[in-house]
């Protein structure tokens, strides 16, 4: 079986696979930024003392967390062109789906991070005469983000793995590029093994690095 393993098909298609990987990385990076930004806003809403706001944010989070990511991708793949009124390209539909979906998960992480900052810090800021915005910006969020960096990065690795789900709409990411070669050249065995190995090595390095970081910054 392994004697027939065709390395040539992999080497020949490295540039093609790299193009796919670039799209995977770009999607991960953009969805990560969107997710953290949205998650921060949602977390602040959720912790707000204004009840309707925190209820709305809580409903948003629970709603997205009870839906499978594939269904969310299908939703936006179908909805975005309808709302915008013209085709905007698969990439943007998928990006919006990922950003909104991840925001729900990041909200929970960031909320836990903000809650881990001691109350006294907030009071001290208020006593100094800082406004709510200044207090968040200069006192609470810097400490919160420092506490939650390991969890944020772990979620980023999960996001990196989840981007492979763009397969269902055929966007040419790393997995789909490999899949195209696999089916065209009838090399399913070689391509899927290679794809799995690449993902495995990248994610293992990532999770090891996160663990080291965690040990270094542990309070």
């Amino acid at each position, binding site marked *: 079986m392994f004697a027939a393993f065709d390395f040539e098909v992999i080497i020949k298609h490295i540039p093609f696979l790299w193009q796919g990987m670039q799209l995977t990385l770009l999607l991960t990076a953009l969805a990560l930024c969107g997710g953290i930004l949205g998650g921060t806003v949602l977390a602040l809403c959720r912790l707000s003392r204004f009840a309707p706001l925190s209820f709305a944010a809580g409903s948003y989070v629970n*709603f997205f967390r*009870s839906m*499978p990511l*594939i269904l969310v991708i299908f939703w936006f793949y179908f909805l975005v062109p*309808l709302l915008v009124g013209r085709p905007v390209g698969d990439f943007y539909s998928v990006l919006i789906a990922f950003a909104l979906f991840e925001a729900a998960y990041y909200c929970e992480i960031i909320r836990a991070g903000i809650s881990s900052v001691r109350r006294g810090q907030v009071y001290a800021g208020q006593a100094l005469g800082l406004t709510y915005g200044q207090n968040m910006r200069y006192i609470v969020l810097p400490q919160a983000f420092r506490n939650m960096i390991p969890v944020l990065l772990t979620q980023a690795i999960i996001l990196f793995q989840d981007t*492979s789900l763009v397969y269902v709409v055929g966007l040419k990411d790393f997995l789909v590029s490999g899949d195209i070669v696999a089916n065209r050249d009838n090399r399913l065995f070689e391509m899927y093994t290679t794809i799995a190995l690449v*993902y495995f090595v990248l994610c293992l390095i990532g999770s090891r690095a996160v663990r080291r970081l965690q040990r270094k910054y542990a309070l």
Partner: protein
Amino acid sequence: MQYNWNWGILLQDPYFGWVWSGLGWTIATACAAWVIAFSLGSVIGVMRTTNVAALRAIGTAYVELFRNIPLLVQMFLWFFVFPELLPRETGMWVKRDLPLPEYSTAVICLGTYTASRVAEQVRAGIESIGQGQRYAGLAMGLTPAQVYRYVLLPVGYRIIIPPLTSDFLGVFKNSSLALTIGVLELTAQTRQIEEYTFQGFEAFTAATALYCLVTFIVMTLMRVVEHKTAIPGMISLEAK
């Protein structure tokens, strides 16, 4: 926005049947996978807390392997690559005679993947109990197996009910990935309705509502279970 609303489509034949059969397959896939995930995950999790280095290493390797490959890629590995790795005869049997090939593959894939998550929860649960209980059990003359059976696991499982609930919901949601190898579960069926009728809004709303409903039912049930099995005096449970 140009869209022709037609909510009646969901009640029409055959689309009504499609949605229900989709829900049925989703639940069947998730529950069967959960059986594998829970039993295998418990074994792996226990292995990681033993004093035998070899067992710990196997447990760690399993968890790292299954957690660091995207689930979708694992699905393809099980479906396309795994039969090739088997001896000729068995491989042929898997390819030709395996009953419900897509469903079985999806269940095995989801089960082994979720097992790595359950294993981590079980390990965390046992580790949170502390070494004192283990030593107390051993000092009373229990064998290591008995210590796990009567002391560590009964307490450990109760502590991890909330994370296990979210893992179960995870397997329920992840069962939607089975559509990539051809299982017609809920998401696949609603996608099919959208393709046949262009009533995507109605179809996806039905799927969303059903997913939310199942999540709600499971959460409510597990809250009752958690309450019933709570150990009086445990800080981790009282804090909730």
